[in-house]
């Protein structure tokens, strides 16, 4: 690809809106009823992070990391790659994200901000995480069919959004590195859906913007 400057975004959009929507329809069909399990695990992540104990947050990030591994293998390699050769390059990034979140959980580097001392950032983080779990509902509200909706832990958009919400609750600087790949995917999916002319193209970037706000919110150290 020696002449990158002469390519436009649409040059890399290799598929039609119909094909992209059916990609998720088939994914949902093939994985049913895994959606119920993944949503249950997503709800568990929310509860564990709201509880906020060291043990519960570690488990939450282990679940999030596993979700990325599933998305990388089953979706990007198993599904997306069949219509976009970029899928084989994105899948390892999803694997790295999964490994990173699992590593955070295993090492216990999952200290959270306090809901009382960082009320705004905490509220936004929980809100973005919840939006990731409710992603199918949001998509349906913007015109996508439920059969072609995306579910946390199975497809990238809700997994990225939910991860960003969880990462926004982290206290340490590791949150900045952890947010990179999910944020990049939110941009990629927004560009993809926008180029396809889909009405739901703004969901991920809006939630990304909120997550960035919470992630960038200053952390203060409170000593008693």
């Amino acid at each position: 690809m020696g002449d990158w400057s002469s390519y436009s975004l649409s040059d890399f959009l290799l598929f039609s809106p119909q094909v992209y929507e059916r990609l998720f329809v088939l994914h949902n069909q093939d994985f049913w009823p895994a959606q119920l399990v993944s949503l249950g695990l997503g709800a568990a992540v929310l509860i564990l992070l709201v509880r906020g104990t060291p043990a519960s947050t570690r488990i939450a990030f282990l679940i999030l990391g596993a979700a990325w591994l599933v998305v990388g293998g089953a979706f990007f390699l198993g599904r997306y790659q069949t219509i976009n050769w970029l899928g084989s390059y994105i899948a390892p990034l999803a694997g790295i994200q999964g490994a990173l979140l699992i590593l955070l959980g295993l090492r216990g580097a999952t200290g959270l901000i306090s809901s009382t001392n960082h009320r705004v950032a905490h509220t936004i983080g929980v809100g973005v995480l919840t939006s990731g779990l409710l992603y199918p509902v949001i998509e349906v509200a913007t015109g996508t069919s439920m059969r072609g909706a995306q579910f946390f832990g199975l497809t990238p958009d809700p997994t990225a959004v939910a991860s960003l919400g969880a990462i926004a609750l982290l206290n340490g600087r590791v949150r900045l590195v952890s947010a990179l790949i999910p944020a990049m995917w939110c941009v990629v999916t927004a560009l993809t859906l926008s180029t396809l002319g889909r009405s739901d193209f703004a969901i991920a970037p809006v939630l990304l913007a909120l997550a960035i706000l919470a992630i960038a919110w200053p952390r203060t150290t409170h000593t008693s």
Partner: protein
Amino acid sequence: MQFSRRTILQGTAAATVAGLTPGGLSAKTQALPLTRQIPSTGEVLPIVGLGSWITFNVGNDPKLLDASADVIAAFFESGGRLIDSSPMYGSSQATIGFALEKLGFPESAFSADKIWTSSKSEGPTQFTETRNLWRLKIMDLMQVHNLLSWRAHLEMLQEKKARKEIRYVGITTSHGRRHGDLEEIMMSQDIDFVQLTYNVLDREPENRLLPLARERGIAVIVNRPFQRGSLIARFSGKPLPKIASEIGARNWPQLLLKFVISHPAVTCAIPATTRIDHVKENLESAAGPLPDSTMRKTIIDHIAQL
């Protein structure tokens, strides 16, 4: 894939076309598309082919694979031959291979594909993959996609042509990219085909590349005859010029396509579509009268006023 049968098929201006669907021979009478010669051999090709950018990239979706095969079946039934693809186009190559096998490998099929990699060493591997995806032993035409590492790949393709693994060699560009480089290659290299973008708004190839192709005896494949559909969207609902009825153009897509294929240097235009009615309409455009030079100017003037 026999040359003699092809020649017989294309040499007839209007004939009874045997249906190519696996279901059997559903004979029907229709006008065959006009043909042009490939200068390097004299073999004739219908002047409308079938592109595959986006349209046949359907992954392993069984419903859409069958729908794509139906479009390809309609293309052959309507007298089409050349189908063009690229490793860049996702699963399009595999979809075409699926369709060809489903249709019993129609003898009239003319396979055109590309090498698309910056790595010299990956070229032969990609060629083998492409041939396997098409499910063919011999590819009719292999082109270097968008001039990417063209020296190395062209040399490799010429060797494969000499070994009769491919029949023709070409090079492609799109959307006006690197026309200067393309001109140099056309001047200096022994190629059978060149592929470029040409349509009623993108007419820069008229200045140098199309005349040069005629001068050098190079066949021309035209991509993006509708600017990926944007021309149809742009002119839809606008009045057709009066000469449209004289050349049998019932709508804008037919007029736009007739404009492209009426250029004497053009061997084959390759619009892509997912619809059977559109593929038939495209080939119908190639079966009727084409605008002469005066009419072509009328079309350009009319569009300029819209």
